[in-house]
């Protein structure tokens, strides 16, 4: 097994007196597609936000290629430029066209030339099937289209790992499919992905590893066949049975 790209060690996070994450430990290796499942409020999103430093961990370490990014000396902006993130609420820039959305990070952060940025953006927009809409503003797009643009925007930065924070939760069922299809494609291409999701079928089919979280701790962690087929923990069984029955 190769060297892990991301190592999370004893990570804890609390908002005031409310403990959200407790002593989280897990690794992500290059090429892994890891899905994090669990009930709402179990700390999945907070974990992802901590990994991207949108939230400051209370204690513990996050090692990215062996370096602790929670250290004072690390510049969060330059770290984030290597770690893509896709949000539940898309967070496309409302004042820019689709193409501009995918170019701005490349030109401002990676200092690429306009031509290079545009070519790169077009490549990924084509990949997600959004190339006909490059002149549209986010307000003119449907949710599924917005999310595909958001994925293209993240990919255009050539990230080493992509974080997905419930990317399909704000979409209606018809549009979920188009976004999941794009993600499936990405997984096949070997992109390292860390996905928080409620799409159990997707987690089972696509991921190389599934993490089940409950009340801020990792409850169970394993290959999808094992976790879905033969869960070891009572809590996991309960969660999955509730989900499957719905």
């Amino acid at each position, binding site marked *: 097994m190769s060297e892990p790209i991301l190592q999370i060690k004893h990570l804890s996070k609390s908002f005031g007196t409310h403990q959200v994450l407790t002593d989280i430990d897990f690794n992500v290796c290059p090429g892994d597609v890891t899905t994090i499942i669990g009930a709402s409020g179990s700390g999945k999103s907070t974990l992802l936000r901590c990994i991207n430093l949108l939230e400051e961990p209370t204690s513990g370490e996050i090692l990215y290629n062996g370096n602790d990014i929670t250290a004072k000396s690390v510049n969060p902006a330059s770290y984030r430029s290597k770690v893509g993130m896709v949000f539940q*609420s898309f967070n496309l*820039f409302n004042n820019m066209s689709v193409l501009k959305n995918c170019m701005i990070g490349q030109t401002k952060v990676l200092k690429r030339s306009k031509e290079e940025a545009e070519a790169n953006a077009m490549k990924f927009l084509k990949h997600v099937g959004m190339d006909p809409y*490059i002149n549209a503003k986010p307000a003119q797009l449907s949710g599924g289209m917005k999310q595909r643009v958001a994925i293209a925007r993240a990919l255009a930065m050539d990230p080493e790992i992509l974080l997905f924070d419930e990317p399909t939760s704000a979409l209606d069922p018809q549009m979920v499919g188009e976004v999941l299809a794009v993600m499936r494609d990405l997984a096949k291409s070997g992109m390292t992905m860390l996905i928080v999701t409620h799409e159990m079928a997707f987690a089972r089919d696509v991921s190389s590893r599934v993490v089940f979280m409950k009340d801020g701790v990792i409850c169970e962690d394993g290959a999808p066949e094992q976790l879905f087929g033969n869960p070891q923990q009572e809590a996991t069984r309960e969660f999955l049975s509730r989900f499957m029955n719905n």
Partner: protein
Amino acid sequence: MLKKLSVIALVMLMLLTCSIGIFADEAKEVLKVGITCDNLPFSWEQEADGNAKLVKINDSELYAYGYDVIIANRMANKLGYTLEIVKLDSNDFVNALEEGKVDAVMSGLVNNDENSEKVDFTVPFYYNNVVTLVKADGEYVSAASVSDLAGANVFVAAEYIDCLASIPDANAIEYDDMSAMLEAIVSNECNAAIVNRSYAKAALTTYTELAMLDFYGTDGDYSVPAEQVEICMAVKKGNAELLEALNVELNKLSLGMNKEFTFKNFDSSMHTAITLNPDFIYAEPETASFIDNIVKLWNRFGITYLTGAGTTLLISVVGTFFGCVIGFLVGVVQTIPVDKKRDSLLKRALLNVVRAVMRAYVEIFRGTPMIVQAVFIYYGAQMMFDIKMDMWTAAFFIVSINTGAYMAETVRGGIMSIDIGQTEGAKAIGMTHVQTMMSVILPQTFRVIIPQIGNNFIINIKDTSVLSVISISDLFFSHKAAVGALYTYFESATIVMLIYLTMTMVTSVLLRKLEKKLGGDANYDVATTDTLALTSGTYNFPDKKKTKEDFR
């Protein structure tokens, strides 16, 4: 967008520096005299009309004339100065003298104990004593003292109402209109009018049926305080040299051939002033209609009004622009996030200090009237720190920082109103705080706060009228000048209101257009000729008209 803004800022800055250059200090050997320009027949302003004695008003296209100007000109000539006329509100006389903006002021400051402590008064340059107008062939024309007017129907000008008591059995009559009063004397309805000398002289020029009774210096005169009669020039407290020189020349005015006191010189200069006033209407019966008056006002003062409106607009535009710049700077600094872990103690401390200063700035300039700020900065800065600002710099400065204080809060609110997701989206692709602000947050903030910028601009158009305290001749000041000359308050106010309304409404419409433009097109071009591409995902294409952005 940013480049365009910075170019505009540069141009504005250049304009500002130019205007400072234009209004810079003049050469020496000049006698700067402050005149109100709105006190007929002592002073008024007008356009050039062939009268060679008109004196150009500083920083204005107009000329001043009147009794004040005649005397000021005479004094400058006698003392060997070039005369410069500075238009001032009489409320600013004391300040302007103290700061050296003018060397002397003419009529407008009463020579009482209170004012004598602040400035030095000369001997009188006019005796505006109380006189009586009667019909030349009437029964009262031979009256030799106040008591001879016993039993008369009298009109008393408001400021001399106390004089009524000295006439036995007087029957007071009131008139709203001075010309109606004069007509009443001619028709014997009213027997006598108690008015001041300058007014009586003006009335006599046209109403030859009338005569003026003057009891000045006799026991039978009205008892009026000397300060109401003696119109004096004033100089800066302690300027003994100028005071002495002026007194010597002014004393000559009041002396006749035999060194006795005489009104002769005063009356002849006053007569000149009255007859040379192009709008001399004391005696004209008021028959002109509303429309006639409007036309007359417009013909005479059209340029004055438009120049005033231009000044108002210029100050509002420059003030609002720099106000927005200040507002964005302050608003942005107020919303800088603090990273307790990574930011150094020094940076955080510095930020806190800067924020405290900005907070204080916002509170002070939002919490005090602009008129007070204007006086404080224009006159105060000169007194306390010896900073000489010309009135234009001061006006731009005052309106800018005043607007900035309001805009700071507007921008702060605008930034906070932008969804946090926008910031997170930018952070997630590695943008720094500055990049996020410049590319993502501020453009959206700008769009959100345009209505508020429009508000501020319209408020500025109206509120610059208070800058007349620092002698800015804006639109409202031009109204004051016009009514000072023609006494057509209603008509002039109508014109001025219409001009204000036009400016604000045009502004409203333009801002709406800008807002729409920044809102973007409802449609976008699909960048493909493959019609099949359109089918995917377009089933939920939102009709732009129905998105909630349109109802904001």
